[in-house]
């Protein structure tokens, strides 16, 4: 991940005068060696252990075959849901979709590490985490269809609304975690963000606040290598997990396509937080296999080779290979899961197509909790204006 920036690559005259090191010109930016990933399952689906990962491995040491099948099922269904949403966008049922294709392990591993009483602050791509939290996936589609800006009650599943302004939610998560600490509760909070988001001042401020208040929050960065068209080198010249150290808490890079490793590392971090040890940063090293969103055209900025290389590390195939080689799942499990996937796809399709447009007056609803005179005035004017049309559409029928 270490790069030489454009500026660095340009030859620069070496310092003249006053230099105690004239001639001692050095290669520009400091290089760090590629750090080892915490990995428990190889891309080929082999379980690996090492002294370095033992601390994390303890958290999944006695994971059962059933739990492993559960993780597999989560990933397959999430991918199926995601594919359906992409299709629905193509069919014009959604205005936009941000696919998580390739990031299933990062999301399911971390999502399954959370406890019910933990609280999750997602970006706009955490469909797999939402799944783990029990949010009905069709609820995620409202905002992409354009019928609302967030279609679920965050407190029902302790899963906050999707946040689109990059980085903002890390501060909300930190504040929430400060509240958890104040309450003397032993819940933890997890904040998702991307490699691009790591550059936002808000994310840095959330590191500072969480460290100073020792807030029980885990920062979960999915480094999927790209922020739209910008590779991670445009955001940092050292691996992102190292950012944490300078704020006084640990950072770990985990193989984000290894659901077991992600589960283990996230459990470790959440538990630290619960135990009063404060924040931690997890960098899940993964890959956005699809476009940034359905509006994006990755062929403009990245080669297909890259994608192909990452396909060999597919999180789902990897776990399947492991399940099969260990005999943890049989053919009927896989074929039943296929059926379940198709049923999910069908349900999502049906629910979305039946999703009504909001009532026109929803424009004014919930602007304020306690009311606002101007909103009242404008609402009344708007209603009168709408009523002035002979053929005015009834509420809910517009467009």
């Amino acid at each position: 991940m270490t790069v030489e920036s454009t500026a660095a690559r340009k030859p620069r005259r070496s310092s003249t005068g006053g230099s105690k090191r004239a001639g001692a010109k050095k290669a520009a930016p400091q290089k760090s060696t590629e750090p080892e990933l915490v990995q428990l399952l190889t891309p080929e689906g082999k379980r690996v252990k090492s002294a370095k990962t033992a601390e994390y491995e303890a958290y999944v040491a006695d994971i059962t075959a059933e739990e492993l099948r559960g993780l597999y099922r989560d990933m397959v269904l999430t991918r199926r849901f995601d594919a359906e949403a992409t299709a629905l966008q193509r069919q014009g049922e959604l205005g936009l979709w941000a696919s998580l294709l390739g990031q299933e392990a990062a999301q399911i591993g971390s999502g399954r590490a959370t406890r019910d009483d933990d609280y999750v602050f997602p970006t706009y791509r955490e469909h797999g985490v939402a799944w783990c939290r029990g949010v009905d996936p069709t609820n995620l589609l409202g905002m992409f269809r354009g019928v609302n800006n967030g279609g679920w009650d965050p407190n029902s599943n302790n899963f906050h609304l999707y946040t689109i302004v990059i980085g903002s939610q890390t501060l909300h998560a930190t504040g929430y975690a400060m509240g958890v600490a104040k309450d003397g509760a032993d819940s933890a909070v997890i904040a998702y963000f991307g490699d691009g988001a790591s550059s936002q001042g808000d994310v840095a401020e959330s590191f500072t606040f969480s460290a100073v208040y020792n807030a029980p929050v885990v920062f979960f960065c999915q480094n999927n290598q790209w922020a739209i068209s910008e590779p991670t080198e445009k955001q940092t010249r050292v691996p992102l997990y190292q950012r944490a150290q300078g704020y006084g808490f640990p950072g770990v890079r985990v193989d984000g396509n290894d659901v077991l490793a992600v589960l283990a590392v996230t459990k470790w971090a959440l538990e630290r937080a619960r135990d009063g040890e404060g924040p931690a940063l997890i960098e899940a090293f993964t890959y956005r296999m699809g476009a940034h969103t359905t509006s994006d055209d990755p062929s403009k900025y990245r080669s297909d080779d890259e994608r192909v290389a990452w396909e060999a590390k597919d999180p789902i195939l990897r776990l399947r290979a492991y399940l099969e080689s260990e005999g943890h799942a049989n053919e009927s499990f896989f074929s039943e899961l296929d059926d379940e996937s198709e049923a999910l796809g069908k349900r999502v399709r049906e629910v979305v197509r039946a999703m009504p447009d909001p009532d026109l007056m929803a424009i004014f609803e919930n602007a304020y909790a306690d009311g606002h005179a101007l909103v009242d005035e404008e609402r009344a004017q708007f209603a009168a204006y709408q009523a002035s049309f002979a053929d005015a559409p009834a509420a809910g029928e517009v467009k």
Partner: protein
Amino acid sequence: MAVQKLPIARAINESLRTALENDPKVLIMGEDVGKLGGVFRVTDGLQKDFGEDRVIDTPLAESGIVGTAIGLALRGYRPVVEIQFDGFVFPAYDQIVTQLAKMHARALGKIKMPVVVRIPYGGGIGAVEHHSESPEALFAHVAGLKVVSPSNSADAYWMMQQAIQSDDPVIFFEPKRRYWDKGEVDKEAFPELSASLEQGRSRSALLHKAAVAREGSDLTLVAYGPMVKVCLEAAAAAEEEGKSLEVLDLRSMSPIDFDAVQASVEKTGRLVVVHEAPVFLGTGAEIAARITERCFYHLEAPVLRVGGYHAPYPPARLEEEYLPGLDRVLDAVDRSLAY
């Protein structure tokens, strides 16, 4: 001892104290609000009495202050955050505009954002750059926020009570040049507000109602915060010249109590709006536009505005000429009456 004579800063301090006593969820956050009691001493003594867990010195990062306050509100707290000076609210502007203001609507009403952002604002204290700004229009334009400013001690006390009880975010502009002006505060004036908080109930009726600060019949002066005093002085001076000016203390810039302004203008037929903020796109623009629409046949003169100029707030040695003062208000009054 219900009625006390208190400076505005002290009235706010006591209002915060009352809120901290009444509701364990109320928190005070900001830079230097703890031991120091804030650079204006508005939070003086609160950390000592309520502890570091409830009166919190934060890192020096305004976006972080507001962003974590939002998180605390999501957890059920009612943070009252202090921005040290008007000119330092902008690093938090993104969190205020895109998150604090919109969260309730985004969640289709399922989340509430009872956060108060206190901002000492306005000029006239001889300060260096960024310490004398009046950015209220930049917040009032944004749906989802409520924006208020008291002009006297009683309002400061009670409006703060109401702001903290509001389930909507309130940007609370404190007229810093008036912090030491004293006025009577009756802490038992509104027993229904003093009672322990019942969250989720609208208490905003009073908060956003304009007050007639002085009755008059020839012309209406509308002001809020630091300019109410100037307008009252102008009205007193005008009286000596035989002109009867009504002074309306707006109290709230979002929502604006247009009914009250309209009622006054229907009586006087003339309106001058006064604020420290630049005239161009200041709150006076909205008042002029809307009142002209509402009172088109009542107005005997166009609504005139007195305020700051379209130039960066000047160095302190020029501020007296930049800020609306008695003479500039009376000049506008004369121009209005000359129509």
